[in-house]
Each structure stands twice: as C-alpha cells, then as structure tokens.
C-alpha cells in the first residue's frame, strides 16, 4: 500500500542513514538460530524446523571488505558457497577451527552430527558421522548440547548438555579424551575455551564452572549473585568469556533474564567488577533465546540480543560496582521496525542470534525469527560527537 511504502521510505532515512557505515539486509527462506564463522568471510546458518532443514555456508558480500575501492564494487549479495540437508533442527552449530568440519546439535538430545562443509570441487555439505553424548540420568529433562572448539591437532570438540556430561571428544575416532568430574545436573547454556586446556561452562541457573582438561580435579564453581527479593520466577542466565592471549586476564559477563548484567574477573568469579541493569524487555525468554557476547576487537563492548527484535551494544567500561540502569551505546532495530506494536496473533519478531566479526571492530551479523539476516557496521555516534 502507499502508506506502507511511505513508512518504509522514512525508515530508510531516519534510522539507517546516519547510523551505519555498511548495511546489508537479507531474507533467508527459513529462519536460523545459528550464525557461525567458518572463515573471515564465511558463515554458516541453518534451519531449526522440526523436520527438513538446510545448512548453508554463506560468503559475505565483497563490497563489505572492499575498503579502498568500495565504490567500484557493486557486489552486495550473499553467495551460497556450500549447502546441505538435515532432517533434524539445528539449534547449535560449531565450526572446528583449522578444518572444514562443523558439528551440530538438534536441541533434543545430547548426540551431535558431524559435517564436512565441502571444498572447492563441490558445493554440497555432507554428514560424515555422529558423536554420542554421555548417557543421561533418568528423571533429568533432556536439553540440547553446548559445543566449543579451539584449534587442535587432531581436531577435538568439547560438548555436553549438563555439567555432569561435559566431555572432550576426538572427532575422527570418537574417543573421549576427557570427562568433567562432577555429579551436578546443572543444564549448560554455553561452553567457552579460555586456553587450549582451560574452559568455562556457563549454566542456565547462573552457576559457572571452570575446569582444566589436563587434570581430573573437580571444577571450580561460582554461583550467581542472589536474585532480587521481588522476583518470584526462576531466573535464567547466559554467559560469555572474553578471549585474549592471557586467560588470567579474561573477563566474564553474566546476563540474567531479568536484564541484570555482571562483569567479573576470571580470577575472582564470585565478585563482580561491575554491574548494570540493561534496557531490555524482560518478557518470558526461553533458555535458547538470548545471546550475550564480548566484542572481539572493541574494548569493553558487549552485544545483547534475544529479548526483542533489536541487538543492543553496551559499553561496559562505564558500568560501576553499583547496580545502575545502563543505556545502550547503539541499538540495531532493523529486524523489527516497531517492536511495541504487534498484530493480533502474530508473534513479535525476535532476534535469534548475533555474532561479531572476529577482526572488524564494529561489524556484526544478526538473524531474526522472520528469516532475516543483517550484516551491519555501525557508527559510534558518541565517538563521532567527541571529535
């Protein structure tokens, strides 16, 4: 309709004009919950419908990377460099660094599928095998696995659905190289390697475990801070650990479903270096919905998504040890133009995933429940104003 076109046009002008250096908007045939880098220019996405799904490896547009001659490059599209089919949902996808392998989990069991992403001679992604997760104790609800990987030879992955079944598996042989010694049934929300051997396991109840694959010692446990007095509902937590050359300098951010964020030092996980109450809508979230991530190439920046149709960037350097409200440094609202409005019966669009580019400081990819995928490079207005 004419009115819609007008609104669309205003949209282009208002939000998207000043605030982005680069902006690309794509529509996948089916939404994805995973975005995983497989190289500096390619990502994998995959569907999560109950039955047939596609796994796609997409190459980002050349124009994004053509920094000197951007004007001469007209190529703005994603290129589907490899694709494959799976008959399960893909809730988790991890690329094994240094290989052309990826590992996926369907969110229903702790078993994982192993894939060959393909080389130059073929564009088909093929399943090459599977990895069995450890057997569950009865009475525990099944949930999906978390997966982590770091460069190693031969390739290995760390995976598990709850603390007691976290293990390090060698990909080619399927051999278990390490098992986390713990009886805890805490369900995992994420796994992170801090070094070749030290890893952090974030649980959705807020517990954090740190362990070393070289030892069979029990992991170090840090519980979350006590919940606010008023809350009745159980709170969910998500975690991210910053990468760095020195694991002891690593910082951990914890984010609760009530919007509370805590930054801690790895050496003192029990204490909080800083905290903030984020500006998010705390509607009911599932354990799989929210993502929180440190920017790999931008000091102290944290991205948050999953509470709504927006991706928010926060500058944690201005947070203090006192809990105060924080405003985002930047908000990418492109996925849902008007998050407050929702047509009757139509569920609101939510961001399902986001990732930072490993090197480009302000480039991110985000995906939403309507199948949209955006690639954006935002402009830090505050920095621009300071000049």
């Amino acid at each position, binding site marked *: 309709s004419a009115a819609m076109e007008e609104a669309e046009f205003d949209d282009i002008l208002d939000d998207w004009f000043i605030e982005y250096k680069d902006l690309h908007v794509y529509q996948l045939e089916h939404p994805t919950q995973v975005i995983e880098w497989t190289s500096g220019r390619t990502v994998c996405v995959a569907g999560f419908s109950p039955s047939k799904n596609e796994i796609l490896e997409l190459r980002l547009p050349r124009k994004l990377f053509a920094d000197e001659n951007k004007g001469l490059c*007209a190529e703005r599209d994603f290129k589907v460099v490899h694709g494959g089919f799976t008959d399960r949902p893909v809730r988790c996808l991890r690329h094994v660094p240094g290989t052309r392998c990826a590992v996926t989990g369907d969110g229903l069991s702790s078993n994982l599928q192993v894939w060959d992403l393909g080389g130059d001679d073929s564009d088909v992604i093929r399943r090459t095998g599977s990895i069995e997760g450890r057997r569950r104790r009865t009475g525990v609800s099944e949930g999906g696995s978390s997966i982590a990987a770091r460069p190693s030879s031969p390739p290995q992955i760390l995976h598990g659905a709850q603390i007691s079944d976290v293990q390090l598996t060698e990909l080619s042989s399927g051999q278990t190289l390490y098992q986390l010694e713990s009886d805890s049934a805490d369900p995992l929300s994420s796994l992170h390697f801090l070094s070749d051997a030290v890893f952090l396991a974030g649980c959705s109840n807020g517990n954090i475990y740190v362990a070393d694959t070289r030892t069979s010692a029990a992991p170090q446990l840090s519980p979350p801070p006590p919940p606010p007095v008023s809350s009745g509902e159980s709170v969910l937590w998500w975690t991210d650990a910053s990468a760095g050359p020195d694991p002891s300098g690593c910082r951990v951010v914890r984010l609760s479903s009530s919007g509370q964020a805590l930054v801690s030092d790895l050496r003192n996980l029990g204490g909080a270096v800083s905290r903030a109450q984020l500006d998010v809508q705390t509607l009911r979230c599932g354990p799989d919905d929210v993502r929180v991530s440190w920017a790999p190439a931008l000091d102290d920046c944290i991205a948050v998504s999953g509470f709504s149709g927006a991706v928010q960037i926060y500058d944690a350097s201005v947070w203090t040890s006192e809990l105060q409200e924080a405003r985002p440094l930047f908000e990418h609202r492109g996925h849902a133009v008007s998050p407050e409005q929702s047509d009757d019966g139509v569920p609101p669009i939510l961001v399902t995933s986001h990732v930072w580019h490993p090197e480009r400081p302000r480039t991110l990819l985000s995906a939403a429940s309507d199948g949209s995928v955006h690639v954006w490079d935002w402009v830090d207005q505050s920095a621009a104003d300071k000049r």
Partner: protein
Amino acid sequence: MQHKIQSLTQDSNHTSPSRAERFHPKLLTLQAHANQPRSVEGAGQDVGRSCILVSIGGKNIMLDCGMHMGYNDDRRFPDFSYITQNGRLTDFLDCVIISHFHLDHCGALPYMSEMVGYDGPIYMTHPTKAICPILLEDFRKITVDKKGETNFFTSQMIKDCMKKVIPLNLHQTVQVDDELEIKAYYAGHVLGAAMVHIKVGSESVVYTGDYNMTPDRHLGAAWIDKCRPDILISESTYATTIRDSKRCRERDFLKKVHETIERGGKVLIPVFALGRAQELCILLETFWERMNLKAPIYFSTGLTEKANHYYKLFITWTNQKIRKTFVQRNMFEFKHIKAFDRSYADNPGPMVVFATPGMLHAGQSLQIFKKWAGNEKNMVIMPGYCVQGTIGHKILNGQRKLEMEGRATLDVKLQVEYMSFSAHADAKGIMQLIRMAEPRNMVLVHGEAVKMEFLKGKIEQEFSIDCYMPANGETITVTTNPSVPVDISLNLLKREMALGGPLPDPKKPRTMHGTLIMKENSLKLVSSEQALKELGLNEHQLRFTCRVQLQDPHSDPDTLHRIYTHLKSVLKGYTIQHLPDGTVMVESIVIKVSSSAEDTNTKVLLLSWSYQDEDLGSFLSTLLKKGLPSGLC
C-alpha cells in the same frame, strides 16, 4: 494404406470375479515411455552469453542470440557450427526468440541473421523490438568506430535484421507454423523482458531469459501460469546468491548522492533512456521532498525525447503504481527535476544530472563527465554494466587517467560508484518459479557448473523432478511422457455410459474394450464391430471345447441335472439354464453329458465356450474335474 490395429482388453487374473467388476469399464491411456527425446544445447556456464538451441517435436528453436562481452575475437559470438558446418541457418531453424534487449541476449543477432544467414521469423516483445536496434547500433559504434574492429555487423545489417522481427504481445498464443506455437509471459527484470512458452503437439518448453521474482519500483515480478511444461529452462547466474534488499541498495544510492551534495559536489548519473532512470528519479524526488533539499536535479533533453517516444510502450510494461502516476501527470513533471541545458554543467554549486548515454561512450553524458572529472568533490554513479571500450568500463576498472581524442589525457579525480540495480532471480526466486509453472524437468543455464550441485539437489528433493545443468556445447536429452490424445467414437462412448457407474475421472481409470485405429496422424478408439466394418473384415469366433471325465452312476440326463444343481449353488449371480435339448448353459457356455462307451459310470462332459467366456470356461472345467459333491439330489 496401412492401418495399425490393436485390440485392447484388460489383462485379468481374477480368480472369482464378480460379474459387475469384470464388465466395469476402464479407460486405458496410451503412455509412450522413452520415445520422445528432447535435446538442449547449453548456453553454458559462462556468464556473458545466452544462446540455446532446443529441438522439440521435430522443430528447432533458437532461444536468444547473445554476445559474450568478455571477448574481442570470434569467441564472443555463439558457435553456430553446431547447427551446420557451412551455409545459412534458415533451413535448420524454425524460429528465433529473443527474451530481452540486453546485449548478452541479443548482441549477436545481426551477426547471426545477416552474416551467417537466417531468413526465418525472429520473435520478441514490442519494447524489445524498439530498444534492441538502438543498443545494437550503440554497441556497433563502440566496437567498430572506437576499437576499429572489422568482423562486425554494419548499421544496415541491424536494420535488415529487425525487418525479420515479428513482435509478440503478452499471453497471446502465436502460431509459428501448423505445429509450433509460442506465448510470451511477463518476466520483470527490464522493460519488455519476456519468458516464453513453446509448444509442439503435447510437448512444451518454457525458457525464462532473465527474470525477477520480486517487484521493482518500476517493474512488476515475473509471472507464469501452471502450464506444466516438460522442461523449464531457467537462467541461474544468481542461483547461488541471496540478494541484498532493495532498501539497502537504495539507501546506499541516496547516501552517496546526499554526501556529494552536502560537500558541494556534482553527481552525474549516466543512464539509458528508460526504466532504471525512472526509478532513480522517483527515488530522488521523494528523498528531496522528505529532506527538504534545494540542490537542482536535471534530466538531459536527449533522455526526455527518447522517453516520450517510447512512452506508450513503457506504460503497459511497467507496474501498476507507475502506471497510475503517469496517468495522473506527465512522465517528466517532477517537482524537483528539471530539463537540463548544457550550459548548466558549468554552474557552481551542487547538482545531480541524469544524462545519456549510459556507458559514457559518447554524447552528453561524456561531455559532462569531461567537465566534472577533475574535481574530487564530484561523483559519477554508474547504474549498470559497461561494454569494453567505453569510458564507463575503464573507470569501473579503476582507471584514473584516460586518453581522450587528440592525445589529451583526463585525470579522473571524482568519486566513481558502481551500483547494480538490475534484478535477477536468486535461489528463492527459482524455487518460486518452479512452484508456479510446475515443470516436469528443470534445466539450469547461465550459471557456474560445479557450484550448483546443492541447488540441483534442492530442486530434485522438493519437487521430485530431474535437474540438468548443461555446459557450453553439451547436448542433454530429456525423456518425457507425452500423453497421446485418442478420439473415442460416439457409439463406444454411449455404450460405456450405458453401463453406468461413476463418471470418468482422470484419477480413477476404468477399463474398456475397443479397437485402436491409427490413420494418418490421428488415433481413434472404436467398437470392434465398427472396426471390422470399416476395414471390411469378417468377425471370426473362437470356441474352445474341453472334455471332462466324471465318475457318476446316474443316467446321462440325471447327471446333467446334478451338474445343473451343483453349478447353481456355486455360481450365484450367473445365468444358468437347463435346456430341453439336453444341455446346461452357463452364460454362453454349453455343457453336454454323454457316457463313455466302455463304462456307463464314466461320464464325459463336453464343455464348449467362446473366447469371450474363456475365464469362466476354464473355471468350470477345473470345477467339474473335481467331481460332483455327494449330497446332490
């Protein structure tokens, strides 16, 4: 005259058929398997030239006749030696169809028709017919005048070629000859672009040319009905891409124009007369209004003239919104866009100018470019592909020093922006088109070989059809299952209807009995009696007889009666009669009893039946061989 006769009955293995079921008619459709090969010579996996040959039902059709823009020698022309080693192509082709005016689809047409030689019909839509010669002439000028080529077509050849063109209207079936018919469908993409449906007898092919499944600001999306062609040939250049949204492209365009204007620079946008230029004008006009901008926007007069000349053609091919806009006002009555005068190029301050020609190879756009190139505040936005040899091509390749006439060099200091607005179908679009047309087989051309296996798998999985990807020079053969139409005689039809039962249903075939007569090119199904009459043949009846020995102490007539009783209890629903002449009749089967000469307790039953009652006859003989049950009276 030889006639071929075939008698059709159902092959029945029923053991105890009920009477009604046996005579319940079914219609058999003749299916010819593996006998209708279709060959397609690939347009190959190069990006840059389309020329496809299709053989269907004995007809040869050339689809597009493009030039490969990357080569300077004869490799830029398609290799017509596949059709014939020497001589003209007229005898080998039934028609040529051109999908749209882009040079990689029509650039070699005058070469083919005038230098190789073809005098048959060339089909294309009206806008394509109007615009093709202009682009071809421009192209010829660049190649011959600027690059000094010799083996190239002349202006006269372009004119002679266009005389062979028969224009097409959308959705109108055109009979090329008695057997070959074609129909054009809207393809989007550019003005006048069409997808074409080709039909010979009951076999058909759809060729898409370049198409687009998402509407533009000035063009609609491609559309075709559920025509279920045997083959759908689709371009797949962008099959493995996922397209960035239109909004983002427009954002980029507006941002660049705005930035240039803000710093006091001038923006030159070289365009071809129609289509894309309109879209960009509308975009700028809306933007200027919204942002309350004051810098002038100009449209060069050459453009206006050409545009007005094609106004009527343009209108029917554009989308609803544009059509409404143009009905309400004159095409170039924009509030913020005015006619350009060459003197304005020297005016100070920011401005935007749309000027022809699109590749900066001559004319006003080149003149303006020369004036503005030296100032780094200025910008030139190239909205499309530029042919080798043009200034446009050079600056898009990063050249910053240009050699002009008279050895003068031009320093290119202004900002050069390449923006692609033309729309092609991506993977999602191809799937949408297949869903629309429902082809039986899929052929992907114009894309990159190895990199389409995933798409092939996707198509094969979702639609359960075969997908082919021929390379240049490769012939593929596609097997089809054409349905053969057979006329049924009125008498036969009436007879079948009289038998009652449900009405004919394509999903529920019925058997029927008839005789197929093939005469000349037609097939008809008539009753056997009629066939015999038509052919002057006598009907022969086959009767089978069989002797069954039976131990029975009764007299012959009593045995006969016992048989009668027995059969009556077993064969319920059949007509069984005990006739006064000493026979029992089951339907038309006759049973007689006589005693053996040697032993009166050994009865010999003589069964006799006609061919039509073969099943029942065999059944009876088997039954009676078992003897009679003791409890009969």
